[in-house]
């Protein structure tokens, strides 16, 4: 006789976490007190402001600020360790190029270590550029780790961006999400066939990523074809209007509140951004030559 159990005994599952493009955030996270537009400005601010800042000291502080922000948002910071290989690979690449091709300038300060001649100025410039890149990278990661596709759309729409841009942005974000999901499944499929990444060298792991490209691109191309056909079949136009010139109904039904704190935070970010830009472009502030660490190192020669 079949064993049976009443379904009523099982309680409906409760969701504790909300899935974002790059991670998960607790449903109770204080970040949801902020309007999506404010969160989008954190991307624009933290992800771009480093373009104006050469000083590694400030960029490192920015990264620390990003981690504090993520901690406040109750994001599991240990999950960020997946980006460690990326940060190491970028560092190896940048410093190797800088050491192998330092450029020719008789004014460079040099020193020898392990039989190799190092030039301080290009090396320090690489060091500064690396931290600038990392600040921008983590500024972007923080945004996509804490926001869903629809929140980005709400934010962009609240800024009165034309429909055609939000339309393409939504497609791009959706594709990015599906691309990552496919990649996760492909990695599972590899493990299901006995692949043990933990016992592999870095070179072999890099080769693995090349392998992912075959199914990922094939799936992406097939999906692009399907999505474009589906959009055509449903009468989508870049204007967002139907053939009878009526506006299409929205599929995002959640209501978000724009509060005073949002205004204050956005204003603070915009003012800081503009100020940093003006100081950098107009007055040369935040240039690498002003770095206290660089000044100290040069004083040793």
């Amino acid at each position: 006789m079949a064993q049976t159990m009443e379904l009523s005994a099982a309680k409906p599952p409760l969701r504790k976490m909300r899935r974002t493009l790059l991670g998960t955030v607790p449903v109770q996270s204080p970040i949801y007190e902020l309007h999506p537009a404010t969160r989008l400005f954190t991307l624009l601010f933290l992800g771009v402001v480093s373009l104006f800042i050469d000083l590694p000291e400030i960029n490192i502080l920015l990264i620390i600020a990003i981690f504090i922000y993520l901690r406040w948002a109750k994001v599991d910071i240990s999950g960020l360790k997946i980006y460690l290989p990326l940060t190491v690979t970028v560092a190896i690449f940048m410093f190797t190029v800088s050491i192998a091709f330092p450029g020719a300038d008789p004014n460079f300060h040099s020193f020898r270590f392990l039989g190799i001649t190092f030039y301080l100025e290009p090396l320090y410039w690489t060091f500064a550029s690396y931290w600038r890149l990392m600040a921008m990278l983590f500024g972007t990661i923080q945004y996509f780790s804490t926001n869903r596709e629809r929140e980005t759309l709400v934010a962009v729409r609240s800024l009165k961006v034309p429909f055609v841009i939000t339309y393409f942005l939504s497609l791009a974000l959706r594709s990015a999400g599906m691309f990552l999901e496919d990649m996760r499944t492909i990695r599972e499929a590899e493990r299901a066939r006995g692949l043990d990444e933990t016992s592999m060298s870095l070179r072999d792991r890099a080769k693995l990523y090349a392998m992912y490209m075959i199914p990922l691109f094939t799936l992406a191309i097939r999906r692009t074809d399907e999505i474009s056909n589906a959009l055509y079949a449903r009468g989508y136009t870049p204007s967002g209007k139907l053939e009878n010139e009526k506006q299409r109904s929205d599929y995002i039904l959640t209501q978000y509140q724009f509060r005073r704190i949002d205004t204050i935070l956005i204003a603070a970010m915009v003012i800081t951004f503009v100020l940093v830009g003006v100081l950098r472009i107009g007055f040369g502030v935040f240039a690498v030559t002003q770095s206290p660490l660089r000044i100290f190192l040069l004083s040793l020669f």
Partner: protein
Amino acid sequence: MTAERLIEVSNLVFEYPDGTPALRGVNLEIFSNEFIALIGQNGSGKTTLAKCLNGLLKPTQGYVKIDDLDTREKGTTKKIVTKVGYVFQNPDHQLFNNTIYKEIAYGPRNLGLDEKQVNERVHEAARVCGVEEVLFNEHPFFLTKGLRQRVAIASILAMRPRTIIVDEPTTGQDLRQSLEVMNFLRDLWQNEGHTIIIITHEMPIVAQYAQRSIVLGQGKVLMDGVTREVFAQPELLAQTFVKPPQITRLAQAFSHVGFSPGTLSVEEMTEQYREICQGKS
């Protein structure tokens, strides 16, 4: 002969990183040479359970033991995949080499076999799955979906697992292709002695092929037993939004005149009808 226990699942709880509780205390035993169907509505935990059975997902609580090998232990991946194979729902997720030969050889190579053994296994798996050798140098993505599914199964079979889990083997296929895949899985079960576990929403397929059915709902096992007995309880099945095949429901509707509520096929119903008529005459 007593059936050998291959997999033991005890109080299995699994939560996804976003906190969604997918399995909530599953207890199961899977024996050698069984043909099992995992059924239930979307989100009931079928695929999660299947991935736990293969060690792809590690239990949040409880355990899964495969031949007494605990899937929670580290470094067990290579041992587990030789015992339980998992064929993904979409074959495109599982094909990442540029020729069919390399695709089937990928698993055995990961197991560290020498090229002679790899070659033997590729030919054996391809033969069993009906993948012709002339296709060995073709790119997997240029094949039909049915053939891609076969290559995906062959690539798992090449690792010679005793248990094979196939996630929705008939999705997106026409009747002829569906029957081809299912008959092929039945051959693996009957002739090669494998334990087959399928995940499906197609109840006629379950009725025709599965010996045992496990019904999942909200992450728990709601029914577990011989398919005929499971389908004979439509009230319980209705709770999970699973309907027995039409022929079973027809027999249940006429059970008062002597039809068995566990009827699984037209042939069975015809036979019962004949007996009922003979009894009356």
